């Protein structure tokens, strides 16, 4: 009964989104403001309706309604309440509903903004976002109905969520990723509106830049949380395996990141309109493409959802959006043409473009590596694997180039820089940065990649801190504020700039962790008896005891106690374990001791015989990996600084801009 209600609401929402598409287009052609307003209000209805439907599903999940196939598949009686709620996105059908709900929230939020200055965009923004919403709703309504009932007798208990997904990281990771994906729909909708209406100035960028930043933050967080989950749960000592599904989530990020930078050039200089259009379309379509790869089963992957009927429909939607977007860009190509001018190949614009090239290079490698197995299978009938060595070898120099650019670009000027000006700005930070590799070399590190990597990290950090210092000094001299006040006020008034710098630092902090685990990871595997020891990377791991017992919730737990010491100093105990769930699913929980210097990561290997006489352990030593997570905190802080809403300053800044422009390049105030 309740399930029928939930499904009925979905169908109605689907029809409403169709209505808003049709009526918005019709209203646009009839020049009828009333109709467009009607379409807008229809769109505003979708979110409350989907909320109702999603809440219905949550209610059914929480109350053990196992007559529903979805509820049966993702919950069981022994799961705690919070897991039953989050099971909303634990499976294909529910996660599609959750995704649609988020999308409706975002599109509703955007239609609530003041539209007076951009009336002409409104109908098309409605059309693009409603088409996307209608597409996802159609998939739910026609193929993946979470409210579908089980045929036959009602089961007493559910199958339960895959144990691997019962982890805090897995509970927040999908919503973050979906938020990132969904919020990229907004800039795309505005870009399409700009193309369709022919209003090809940078207005759409100004409206959506904060959306884009939030979208980018959620996407980045989604990626990091996924990595964290893999590190904590999968028990292979790493966090990123260049799996097709991981790459599918990374690809929009690889385009969204340069987009955040090149839009600045369009805002400042009116340049690169074509490039920005290209980038936002690519981001959106990679979002759809990534979802398609994950959910259609075209590519086999450890993460892939089970094969389903939505593949062909998804394929059609990708075709539709790609062909329409490309056709529109080609149609407006001439209008998007702008007078581009630079005074130097070292200007900040040129460096941003170079960074965009490197990002797109990584994208090309990732994309090609992901779809190549498909091509190989089609033409030769042979399956091949494109694995981490391929991606690592191909992308490492490009990542390095990006870090170098992060070090240089803040010191180059908009419009004009020469070797001389740049050289003068950069030599001091460079010398400071060089201390790091020298120290590392003295400390016995000989790996070239590591030495170069640490140099670049040091360069970015010193250059960025130097920029903070330079700005604060300039302000404190001029305004009689003390240094700290000056720094805070300066950053507060130029959030985007200084938030961006904080993000740069956070990125290289993550790079420290990545370099650490990629280059210095060591591992060993050994069968030992209780009382024996394993040595790795200076640590002595003593095997104290083994316990095997059945937990209250039916899990069969195998848990070892290991005491860790280093150079005779006691460093506490670790408890690697694995649980066998009642349905036979294993879950490995490594024992991890994490410090700023290194992680000791002990896995109790569950694929071999385990007993007190001979227990197989796999031990990883992962230097510096904690910096990845530390960088993430700083990253969130940086985005908050950059994107925190402030008063709409556009009118004011436009005025002051005009005033200042009158000074021309004589520039000084």
């Amino acid at each position, binding site marked *: 009964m309740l399930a029928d209600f939930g499904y009925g609401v979905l169908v109605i929402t689907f029809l409403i989104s169709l209505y808003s598409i049709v009526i918005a287009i019709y209203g646009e052609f009839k020049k009828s403001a009333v109709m467009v307003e009607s379409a807008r209000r229809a769109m505003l209805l979708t979110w409350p309706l989907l909320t109702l439907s999603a809440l219905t599903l949550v209610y059914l999940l929480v109350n053990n309604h196992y007559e529903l196939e979805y509820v049966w598949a993702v919950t069981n009686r022994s799961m705690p309440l919070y897991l039953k709620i989050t099971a909303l996105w634990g499976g294909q059908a529910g996660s599609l509903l959750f995704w649609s709900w988020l999308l409706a929230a975002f599109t509703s939020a955007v239609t609530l903004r003041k539209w007076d200055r951009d009336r002409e965009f409104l109908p098309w923004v409605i059309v693009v976002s409603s088409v996307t919403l209608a597409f996802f709703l159609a998939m739910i309504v026609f193929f993946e109905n979470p409210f579908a009932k089980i045929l036959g007798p009602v089961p007493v208990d559910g199958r339960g969520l895959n144990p691997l997904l019962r982890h805090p990281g897995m509970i927040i990771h999908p919503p973050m990723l979906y938020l990132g994906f969904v919020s990229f729909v907004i800039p795309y909708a505005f870009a399409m509106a700009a193309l369709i209406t022919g209003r090809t100035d940078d207005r759409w960028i100004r409206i959506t830049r904060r959306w884009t930043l939030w979208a980018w933050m959620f996407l980045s967080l989604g990626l990091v949380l996924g990595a964290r989950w893999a590190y904590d749960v999968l028990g292979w000592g790493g966090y990123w395996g260049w799996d097709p599904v991981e790459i599918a989530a990374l690809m929009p990020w690889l385009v969204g990141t340069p987009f955040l930078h090149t839009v600045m050039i369009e805002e400042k200089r009116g340049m690169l309109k074509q490039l920005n259009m290209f980038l936002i379309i690519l981001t959106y379509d990679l979002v759809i493409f990534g979802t398609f790869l994950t959910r259609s089963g075209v590519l086999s992957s450890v993460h892939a959802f089970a094969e389903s009927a939505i593949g062909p429909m998804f394929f059609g939607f990708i075709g539709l959006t790609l062909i329409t977007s490309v056709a529109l860009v*080609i149609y407006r190509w001439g209008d998007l043409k702008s*007078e581009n001018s630079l005074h130097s190949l070292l200007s900040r614009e040129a460096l941003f473009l170079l960074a965009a090239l490197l990002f797109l290079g990584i994208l090309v490698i990732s994309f090609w590596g992901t779809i190549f197995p498909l091509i190989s299978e089609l033409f030769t009938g042979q399956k091949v694997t494109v694995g981490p060595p391929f991606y690592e070898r191909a992308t490492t120099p490009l990542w390095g180039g990006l870090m170098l650019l992060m070090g240089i670009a803040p010191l180059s000027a908009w419009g004009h820089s020469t070797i001389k000006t740049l050289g003068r700005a950069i030599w001091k930070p460079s010398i400071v940065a060089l201390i790091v590799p020298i120290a590392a070399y003295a400390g016995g590190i000989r790996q070239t990649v590591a030495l170069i990597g640490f140099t670049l990290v040091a360069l970015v950090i010193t250059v960025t801190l130097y920029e903070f210092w330079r700005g604060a000094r300039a302000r404190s001299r001029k305004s009689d504020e003390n240094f700290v006040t000056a720094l805070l006020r300066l950053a507060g008034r130029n959030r985007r700039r200084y938030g961006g710098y904080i993000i740069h630092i956070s990125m290289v902090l993550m790079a420290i962790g990545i370099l650490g685990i990629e280059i210095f990871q060591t591992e060993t595997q050994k069968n030992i008896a209780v009382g024996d020891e394993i040595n790795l990377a200076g640590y002595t791991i003593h095997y104290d005891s083994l316990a095997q017992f059945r937990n209250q919730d039916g899990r069969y737990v195998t848990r070892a106690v290991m005491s860790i010491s280093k150079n005779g100093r006691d460093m506490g105990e670790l408890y690697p374990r694995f649980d066998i769930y009642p349905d036979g699913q294993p879950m490995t929980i490594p024992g991890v001791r994490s410090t700023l210097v290194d992680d000791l990561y002990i896995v109790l290997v569950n694929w071999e015989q385990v007993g007190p006489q001979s227990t197989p352990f796999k031990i990883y030593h992962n230097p510096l990996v904690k910096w990845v997570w530390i960088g993430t905190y700083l990253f969130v802080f940086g985005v908050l600084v950059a994107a925190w809403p402030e008063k709409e300053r556009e009118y004011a800044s436009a005025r002051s801009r005009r005033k200042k422009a009158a000074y021309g390049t004589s520039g000084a105030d």
Partner: protein
Amino acid sequence: MTENTPETTAPKRDMPLWVQIIVWVALIALLVILGIGLMRNQQGTVQAGDRIYDFSLTLFDDYTYEGKSPVTLSDLRGKIVVINFWASWCTTCKQEAAELEAAWQYYQPGGEVVFLGVDYVDTEPEALAYLEEFGITYPNGPDMGTRISQAFRIQGVPETYFLDREGVLQYVQIGPFTSIDQIQSIVDSLLAE
């Protein structure tokens, strides 16, 4: 209202035709590849009526078929061929192993039916132990380089394919057989044709 002054806009020039052509060709190629990949994926295994590519199976050391070791599919025209994919690590395969062998014992004297066991990505000692355990006597061999299983686009093991006398695929069994009758009814219907 516009943020960029109009004079920064250059005279309108469309995208060069050759660039347009490249863009469209690349786009269509991508969609075609994805489309075909998706189609294959949706199809699953080869279907009844599909043409079966010829292959030859090199048998395990103690196995021969009519005294020969590599068995070539095209040499078996005129006979019903039952191709069973299995592996020693596959637990469901063990459920049907005895039934398959019994069916082979039943049809072998007639000489009109050939059973072929194709060992899918397996290790030889375990595979031989498996064959020994279930006393399997029909020709068995490893699928070197997974060529045969890829040609059949198998989705897992066990899977069994029934070819008629013309070498046309007539029936596909996904998952294990539950009884010998199940096998016999399929083979008998092919024999009756």
